[in-house]
């Protein structure tokens, strides 16, 4: 009780943060880009399943694995984009870059589409959208 009373009496009025913005205040569209590159690479491998598969598996097996991995990676693209969209970007950013909401909408939709598409051109389109977000992101960092 006495300890609490003393603590209240001598408590500083200011707080200093030895802090970490979980997840560490670290935002980087590179995370989404890497996952999207995986998506595109899997789409390419899916097309070349005959030559890419190991001797121990059938083309169907190899393609099944491709689809499973692609599903997972496409979801990670969405996750990383959502974190940027909802955590990093703030109203002033949207004011300056009015296309931002549409861009994220398109990119996350495209990430969803890549679950269904086996065409590397689709993966390339996804990467193009992420590239646009990346450009805006680094412009806001310079500001």
């Amino acid at each position, binding site marked *: 009780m006495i300890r609490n009373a003393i*603590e209240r009496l*001598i*408590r*500083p*009025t*200011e*707080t*200093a*943060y*030895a*802090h*970490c*913005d*979980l*997840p*560490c*205040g*670290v935002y*980087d*569209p*590179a*995370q989404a*880009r*890497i996952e999207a590159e995986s998506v595109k690479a899997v789409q390419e491998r899916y097309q070349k399943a005959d030559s890419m598969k190991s001797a121990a598996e059938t083309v169907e097996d190899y393609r099944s694995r491709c689809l499973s991995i692609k599903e997972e990676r496409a979801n990670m693209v969405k996750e990383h984009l959502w974190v940027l969209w909802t955590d*990093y970007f*703030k109203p002033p950013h949207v004011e300056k870059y009015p296309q931002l909401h549409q861009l994220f909408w398109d990119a996350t939709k495209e990430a969803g589409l890549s679950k269904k598409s086996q065409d590397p051109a689709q993966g390339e389109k996804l990467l193009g959208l992420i590239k646009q977000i*990346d450009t805006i*992101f*680094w412009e*806001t*960092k*310079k*500001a």
Partner: protein
Amino acid sequence: MMMQRLWLALGALAAAAVSILAVVLRRGVMRVEVAGESMTPALEPGDFLILRRGAPPAGAEYGQIVALHDPRPEGDGRLLLKRVVGQPGEALRVGGSLQVNGRVLIEPYAHGDTPTEQHRGINRLEAGTYFVLGDHRGASTDSRDFGPVAREAIAGFAVLRYWPVARAGWLRPPVRRLLGVGPEVPQPLVWQTPSPDAGNP
């Protein structure tokens, strides 16, 4: 009569001392409560500190725990507590271990690894700028995120922990110890903004 005058004099003296102390406390030092765990084990959440206002004396900045306002545009400008690990003119390689001018810095106060997402690579410090890191490397927002910090941006440096009593004492910076070979002071180069690929070495 004599006793009355003595008490009056003592009272006036005490009032003057309190006034002077109040002015000194307001101008020369600041008191802060620590929140967060990026400076553990040196600082624990709930520690009460006394900081001297302004940057540490030139030439004695290494290892000092400094308070600076969050410089990130997306930050809210609140006070951050971090340790100075790089001084003006030095080249720092941030990664698994910290290298200063090509030599590994021995950091008994640090623990945890730099996450791959944070800026790694070589950071060259211009005149009047410092590289600050949290001791808990795996969970700290610091110069790996917002880059070097200008001397003017440092609001104060920690000198004393006065609460809790069991951990009270002076907060003295460690002596800097470097391993390996390399030039002591390279020519200062321009700080470069991390490239989009910076987090993916």
